[in-house]
């Protein structure tokens, strides 16, 4: 009962409350309260994530598994950032309440927390994603093969979009008169046709399909048919 019935009941009730809140103004406040609780729990979930990170890395350090030194760096960085942020160490005092330590601005560039955001987190995060450009180039060279009509269509479209997105497209097709019968062959027109007509149609159909799947899954969850979120012996009824 504690591990199956109550969770299923909680899920169903919360789902039904949200659906009712959408349709009836009398139940709107219930829905607002449920979503407010949801958002607070989302904040607590971040604490769970941090706690789990700490547990996993401390286990690795205590067991002296290979790479434990990197785990130590992770823990040290985590604790430092937590100290600067939670305790507001080095925060810029509030102008309005200079005597209230926790009213200070910890995100200012002058504070250690803000400094670490701009000079550690921001460059690391940006560079990690920037690396993908190199791997896209490598993958394009090794894997993108025009073996059949479909792949030719895909690559051809990619070429058109890549060229028309830059001045190269304008240079290559700029000589075509815009008002002529073949004016649609100009790079910017081709790109507009591809993105606003063909690509939109394809993505619209994909979006409708996904939405139908979301609706079906939501109904199954709320009605208690799908219980895959339960830890043991879950699955569909």
């Amino acid at each position, binding site marked *: 009962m504690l591990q199956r019935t109550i969770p299923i009941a909680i899920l169903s009730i919360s789902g039904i409350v949200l659906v009712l809140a959408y349709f009836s103004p009398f139940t709107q406040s219930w829905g607002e309260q449920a979503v*407010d609780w*949801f*958002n607070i729990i989302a904040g607590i979930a971040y604490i769970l994530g941090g706690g789990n990170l700490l547990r996993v890395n401390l286990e690795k350090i205590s067991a002296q598994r290979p790479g434990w030194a990197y785990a130590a760096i992770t823990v040290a960085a985590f604790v430092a950032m937590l100290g600067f942020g939670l305790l507001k160490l080095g925060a810029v005092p509030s102008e309005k309440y200079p005597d209230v330590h926790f009213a200070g601005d910890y995100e200012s560039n002058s504070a250690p927390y803000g400094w670490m955001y*701009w000079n550690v987190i921001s*460059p690391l995060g940006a560079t990690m994603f920037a690396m993908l450009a190199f791997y896209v180039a490598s993958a394009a060279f*090794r894997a993108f*093969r025009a073996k059949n009509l479909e792949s030719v269509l895909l690559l051809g479209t990619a070429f058109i979009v890549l060229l028309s*997105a*830059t001045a*190269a497209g304008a240079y290559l097709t700029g000589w075509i008169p815009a008002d002529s019968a073949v004016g649609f062959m100009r790079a910017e027109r081709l790109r507009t046709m591809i993105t606003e007509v063909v690509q939109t149609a394809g993505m619209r159909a994909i979006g409708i399909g996904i939405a139908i799947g979301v609706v079906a899954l939501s109904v199954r969850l709320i009605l208690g048919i799908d219980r895959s979120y339960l830890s043991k012996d879950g699955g569909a009824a």
Partner: protein
Amino acid sequence: MSEPLLVRLGRIDRRWIFLAMALSIIVPMLLKVRFPEIPQPMARATFEAIERVPEGSRVLIAFDYDPASQGELQPMANAIVHHCASRGHKMVFMTLWPFGGPLAERTIDDILLAYHPGYKYGIDYAELGFQPGNEGVVKLMSTNIPKQFPTDKRGTPLAQVPLLADLADTTGFKLVVSISAGYPGAKEWVQYANGPAPEAFTFVSGTTGVQAAQLLPYYPAQMEGMLLAVKGAAEYETIVEEKYPPPQHPERIGDGRVRMGPQLVAHVLMIVLIVLGNLSMAAGRTRGGMR
């Protein structure tokens, strides 16, 4: 019998490809290669959508991205903030991403207060900051903003901030802008804020190249304007700068156009790589057939 060059090329160490990609960006960047941008319909539609909003309206700008997408989205964020401020709009800033707050702060300092020093906090602009909950935040904002944000980013209750005191829900805005890198972002704004009240406010978004395809179906019925990646940002910068020239530091709304220079060379490199890869495959097949 030695292998043809094309076949050997197919086995090239990928680090040479990495080097080629790096040089294709660094060289035009150092040579300061620039190209004129001709605004296309989508960028124009975004500009016109913001222009149609009456001057001095209260607008919401959501910085739904993090430093990883700053390269693409910061140029459009800068241009949008300058455009809105030039129209005298009262701006409310927020973010759905934990890392988005400082980006909004920096935009306020570098663009809003630098270009429009008359803007005062609490009267002309305000910051709601970040709240966890992803689409739950947008859902609750669509019916009850004070419940979602009991205080502004500085810890002041909303009732004590003149710009926010009478703000009940998202229909209190005439324009909502989501500068979006993924989830949560523009899609959630369409689904949870714009969906229930489609005529209440104008909604436009700026998006990364990766997310652009996902948002295209919403344009123009549910989203009146959309800026696609750095190309859209560059076109939009051109239009905004033409009508509202920045009073100082014009380079701060020029990053999109700056980054389009290296784009050309890198795109041509991508095409060359794909063609070479296919030629190498064909050469390998031909060679195998001849044996």
